[in-house]
């Protein structure tokens, strides 16, 4: 075989030199002539009807415009799966931090000061802040007439009968927390109009092609009139998959015919982008006397907050991975994505697969304790090997190096056990 020219060779990353010298251009590093600055006014209530009065702010010296829902030239919406974000809230706010207006002024400082003069009158509505409550018939509704965005079901074997046969059955509830990506570079961007009328937006994004569609639709312009330039991206981890600055900047540049820039503070950044889904995980796991995992039932409820973002994909993945890397012949898994009036959640490293291990692994520890089996040996006994059939019906035919990994890790931490790593382990 010819040696690979790529594998095994370290390539210099093409942007490394610009990054170590400070020359890499992130969106906030762009300064253009005649540029003005925008600041976003956001809701302070989780659920309320609103009325916006911008007259006083418009009179503030240095203020050039205050854009609200009525100024949106196309569809006042965006969203990766469902168009359930408004560019600017029109009648209602559904979470704290939802954009209501964009104040444009000759300096960032002026824009911030004038923002305090935009009067938002709130008529508070009952909010639902727990997804388990939000699933109930009589709960306040965030969008439409049900808060349940998605229900994923996985069934294998006969779960009722299987639990009857188990020596131990462990039942527990686990909760994971809401987490921010906290990428180091807060959102920023610049938009300007090119000579031929193209609206160009320079920003740090994970999805320039999606952004283009969303901006075009919100502005009511054809795709070929929108250009997204991806600058250097100061970390993302899934948190730059939804729209933040793009449409506000594009709209302001289009209306004003001038370059418009915005740079979020860290606090605004926290309010503007998605979070990791907190999951409420109810688990019931059963094993036979010899430590064979035999049945598992899980109900997983994911808090999507006020917008769906990638909720379907995330909760599907949580459901698919809910049993962990173990052969369990009888499975019943239900996962749900649910709207609440909390900050919205979306993509974040692992996409739903990162939360479930704390549940399925602690279940196994508890079973091992009750059966008086070494927790590593019970994992070796049940984990996926070549030839294993997963709960979703896939036969693992290629390499499955989990056994070796567990053994190596166990040895590293000084565990003593009777498994021999050279022994061929049969599924």
């Amino acid at each position: 075989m010819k040696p690979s020219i790529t594998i095994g060779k370290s390539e210099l990353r093409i942007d490394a030199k610009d990054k170590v010298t400070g020359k890499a251009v992130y969106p906030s590093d762009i300064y253009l002539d005649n540029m003005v600055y925008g600041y976003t006014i956001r809701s302070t209530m989780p659920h309320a009807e609103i009325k916006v009065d911008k007259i006083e702010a418009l009179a503030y010296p240095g203020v050039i415009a205050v854009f609200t829902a009525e100024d949106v030239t196309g569809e006042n919406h965006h969203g990766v799966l469902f168009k359930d974000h408004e560019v600017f809230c029109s009648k209602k706010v559904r979470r704290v931090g939802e954009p209501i207006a964009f104040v444009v002024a000759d300096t960032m400082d002026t824009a911030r000061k004038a923002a305090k003069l935009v009067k938002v009158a709130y008529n508070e509505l009952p909010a639902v802040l727990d997804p388990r409550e939000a699933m109930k018939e009589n709960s306040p509704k965030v969008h439409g007439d049900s808060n349940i965005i998605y229900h994923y079901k996985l069934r294998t074997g006969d779960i009722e009968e299987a639990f009857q046969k188990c020596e131990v059955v462990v039942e527990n509830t686990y909760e994971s927390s809401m987490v921010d990506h906290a990428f180091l570079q807060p959102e920023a961007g610049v938009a300007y109009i090119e000579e031929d009328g193209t609206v160009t937006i320079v920003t740090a994004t994970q999805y320039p092609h999606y952004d283009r569609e969303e901006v075009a639709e919100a502005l009511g312009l054809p795709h070929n009139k929108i250009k997204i330039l991806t600058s250097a991206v100061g970390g993302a981890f899934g948190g730059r998959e939804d729209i933040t600055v793009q449409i506000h900047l594009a709209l302001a540049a289009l209306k004003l015919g001038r370059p418009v820039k915005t740079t979020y503070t860290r606090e605004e950044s926290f309010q503007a982008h998605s979070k990791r889904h907190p999951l409420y995980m109810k688990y019931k796991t059963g094993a036979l006397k010899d430590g064979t995992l035999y049945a598992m039932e899980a109900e997983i409820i994911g808090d999507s907050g006020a917008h769906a973002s990638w909720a379907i994909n995330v909760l599907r993945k949580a459901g698919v991975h809910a049993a962990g890397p173990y052969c369990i012949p009888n499975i019943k898994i239900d996962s749900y994505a649910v709207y609440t009036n909390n900050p919205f959640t979306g993509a974040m490293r692992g996409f739903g697969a990162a939360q479930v291990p704390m549940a399925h692994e602690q279940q196994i520890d508890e079973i091992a304790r009750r059966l008086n089996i070494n927790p590593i040996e019970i994992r070796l006994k049940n984990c996926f090997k070549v030839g294993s059939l997963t709960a979703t019906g896939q036969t693992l035919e290629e390499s499955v190096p989990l056994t070796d990994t567990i053994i190596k890790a166990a040895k590293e931490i000084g565990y003593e056990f009777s498994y021999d790593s050279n022994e061929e382990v049969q599924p």
Partner: protein
Amino acid sequence: MNEQIRFNLNGKDMEIQADPSMRLIDLLRDELRLTGTKEGCGEGECGACTVIIDGITANSCLVLISQIRDKKVTTIEALEQEALKKGDELHPIQQAFIDAGAVQCGFCTPGMVLSAKALLDHNSSPDENEIKRSISGNLCRCTGYKKIEKAIQIASDYMKKDGVE
């Protein structure tokens, strides 16, 4: 109320008329367009805005320009100048960051490099703990720090070799 402020920036004497309550980071970025200094939090938590003032690292988001009177301020842009003077493309610390794979999104990198410089300028052979302490004010959300520590170790070797030649 502008005042006259004199200081040295990257080896050059400067005299500016400015509001003494302006933040140093705003002077560097918005006025002087030295955008290698980054703002990650604006409140002294992240270290992306690190500069060196009279040999000691400082968060330029927490420094008012009245505090830099008659002081020497070093930003990331100085390192290239230093390298060019020696006929090199990059400063050994910058080279080490590339060689160790310590750069990902790069937003923390200028601050990290300057923290490393402040350390290595005083201590050419730091041990692991000294390296860790030197970057304890700099957050990196991408790399997990290990490669950055390695980079500083390598940089110390490069700089010692440089000194011998």
